């Protein structure tokens, strides 16, 4: 009986932007002037964010999620491995998910193989190793040709996995990272290697490359409900085409949750942080207003085939998550779920039943949300939402995926 897994994802946003930020700046990424950074006010910021993640372990979450972003207000982890290293010293049970290291930004993938191996040893085998290409902002931040990133990406991942699993020294002959001596010390604690998660935003190429290697897929687009189901079906088909079998733990989704005593208090408490997150942190990312750096002709990372498909299925004038006009609109969208424990439980259960996905990576802290609110929401979730969802999902998955019992490592 393997229940759905619930992870606490912290973005580590910069919470001290001026009130008129949205009016004055075109983006919260890349060009957002760093004179807005206040070292005095931020003195305790990392400590507080790390404490919240440690608290998630105390509360019984399955893991903690970190990711890499550069030169932005959305997430202050240019090096998630540094936070991961800190977490190895503060926690003892919870998985440490780095989703992921942005491989093409690194001069040499060997460094990532080494750092993951270190974190895996330091955490006694708790790492889930994510790899991502890096979105548009990172192309600008590191002046990296997005058209070239993808081909470097898969070569880099294959090199990392081989560095973890094959006996060294061996020579890597790839065109992007030719290396004479691959022979990493330390090796990973987990054998044959830590689980590998690959985030993607529905591109068929990413699903194919992920499935081909037997890795797990994480849907990073904020689509929910029926769209998540569609994505899971699509990935299941791709896995099948590569001779594998889909089960819910092959895939994860990102969502945002706020739990309070009542629906009314949830809305009252979450509003400030949520709107700060939408209007400021998502500006330049998941917002139409301003100038997005996430996706577009200036960041031509998509293959010609994918781009054409995108053009046919999208409308550039459409509002995005960060442009939401009202709380009701947000609520209907399903990407941000706020309410009483009963409300949140009901909505998450609908998603679990519908989507057939087993890993839920949940953002509890939004933008400039007060720490006490984020902690309360996490606590209410852990005490009043999690137990029932675990019980019910285990039964659901056992019925729907009887082969799960035999698959080692699926749903830990």
């Amino acid at each position, binding site marked *: 009986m393997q229940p759905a897994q619930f992870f606490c994802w912290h973005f580590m946003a910069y919470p001290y932007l001026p009130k008129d930020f949205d009016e004055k700046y*075109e983006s919260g990424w890349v060009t957002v002037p760093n004179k807005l950074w206040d070292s005095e006010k931020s003195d305790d910021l990392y400590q507080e964010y790390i404490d919240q993640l440690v608290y998630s372990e105390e509360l019984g979450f399955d893991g903690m999620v970190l990711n890499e972003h550069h030169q932005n207000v959305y997430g202050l982890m240019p090096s998630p491995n540094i936070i991961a290293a800190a977490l190895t010293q503060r926690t003892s049970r919870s998985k440490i998910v780095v989703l992921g290291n942005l491989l093409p930004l690194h001069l040499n993938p060997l460094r990532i193989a080494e750092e993951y191996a270190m974190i895996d040893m330091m955490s006694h085998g708790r790492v889930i190793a994510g790899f991502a290409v890096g979105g*548009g902002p990172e*192309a*600008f931040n590191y*002046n*990296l*040709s*997005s*058209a*070239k990133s993808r*081909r470097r990406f898969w070569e880099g991942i294959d090199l990392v996995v081989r560095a973890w699993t094959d006996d060294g020294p061996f020579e890597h002959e790839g*065109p992007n990272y030719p290396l004479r001596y691959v022979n990493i010390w330390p090796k990973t604690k987990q054998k044959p290697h830590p689980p590998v998660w690959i985030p993607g935003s529905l591109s068929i190429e990413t699903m194919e490359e992920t499935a081909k290697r037997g890795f797990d897929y994480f849907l990073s687009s904020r689509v929910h409900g029926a769209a998540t189901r569609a994505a899971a079906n699509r990935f299941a088909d791709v896995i099948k085409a590569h001779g594998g079998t889909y089960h819910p733990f092959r895939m994860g989704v990102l969502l945002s949750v706020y739990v309070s005593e009542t629906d009314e208090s949830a809305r009252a408490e979450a509003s400030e942080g949520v709107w700060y997150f939408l209007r400021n942190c998502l500006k330049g990312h998941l917002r*139409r*207003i*301003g*100038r*997005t*750096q996430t996706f*577009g*002709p*200036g*960041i*031509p990372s998509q293959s*010609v085939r994918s*781009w*054409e498909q995108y*053009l*046919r299925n999208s*409308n*550039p*004038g*459409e509002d*995005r998550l960060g442009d939401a006009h009202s709380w009701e609109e947000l609520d209907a969208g399903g990407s941000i779920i706020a309410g009483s424990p009963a409300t949140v439980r009901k909505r998450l259960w609908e998603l679990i039943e519908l989507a057939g996905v087993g890993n839920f990576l949940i953002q509890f802290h939004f933008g400039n949300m007060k720490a006490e609110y984020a902690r309360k929401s996490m606590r209410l979730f852990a005490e009043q939402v999690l137990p029932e969802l675990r019980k019910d999902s285990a039964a659901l998955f056992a019925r729907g995926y009887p082969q799960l019992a035999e698959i080692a490592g699926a749903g830990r």
Partner: protein
Amino acid sequence: MSAQTVDVQGRKIALLRTGKGAPLLYLHGFADIHGASAGPMPFHDRLATSFDLIAPAHPGCADSDERDDLDSVQDVVEEYIDLVDALGLESFHLAGSCVGGWVAAAMAVRQPERVKKLVLIGPTGLFVSGKPIGDIFWVAQPEDGIYYNDLRRMLFAGADSGVGKTLFPDGRGEIPQEMLRYRMFRFASQVGFTPPYLYDRKLRDQLHRYTGPALILWGEHDHMVPQDHGKAYAEGFPHAQLRVVPGAGHSVAAEKPDETAKLMAEFLRG
């Protein structure tokens, strides 16, 4: 006039070949044939009245095959050397706009003996300290999801340029035109996004190798490549002249087709 493809080392290069006269290899930029226009524009038509115009599409652009090993402008130069070999062109006039101008300059210093005369129109390619080439990739990201004012301001004399609005309209254009532009940005990203940004720091010291006549054309209101780059090109080649085209922005050939074609024809025939 014919649109054709040529097989070069197993790869397909699409090209337009039109007109009669001395062969003129023309390498395109953004607001140009293969970059934003499927067919020839008035500028190309004018040239075709005096020359055998050969205008290939860069790797990945229009119907040319994309190369997944494309790293730099040098790779493009080698591809075009194979192309002119395949076409049996011993020597030819060489011209290029914007990124195509950069490729042309790099090709002229690579095989100077084959280039009779060289015309560079608002070429990128040089490093001039303190005078950076504008970030065309940044402005290719629309404002509020739909407006390309900054992109047009960079590529043309102004955001409301007529030809600018035709080639780079606001909102979602027709899919074939969108794909043409996307392919061009993808090409440019491969050769010019990773540092150095649309330039090769070493090119300036190689310009002396091309000793033939060179004409450097620059738009008076070029907001992408500062005119100092034009001066640097003109100083780097032993026999070059810089001419500024009044009223034009960066995309001189698209904005002032008559004047540009006339200046070129006079220079190439003279």
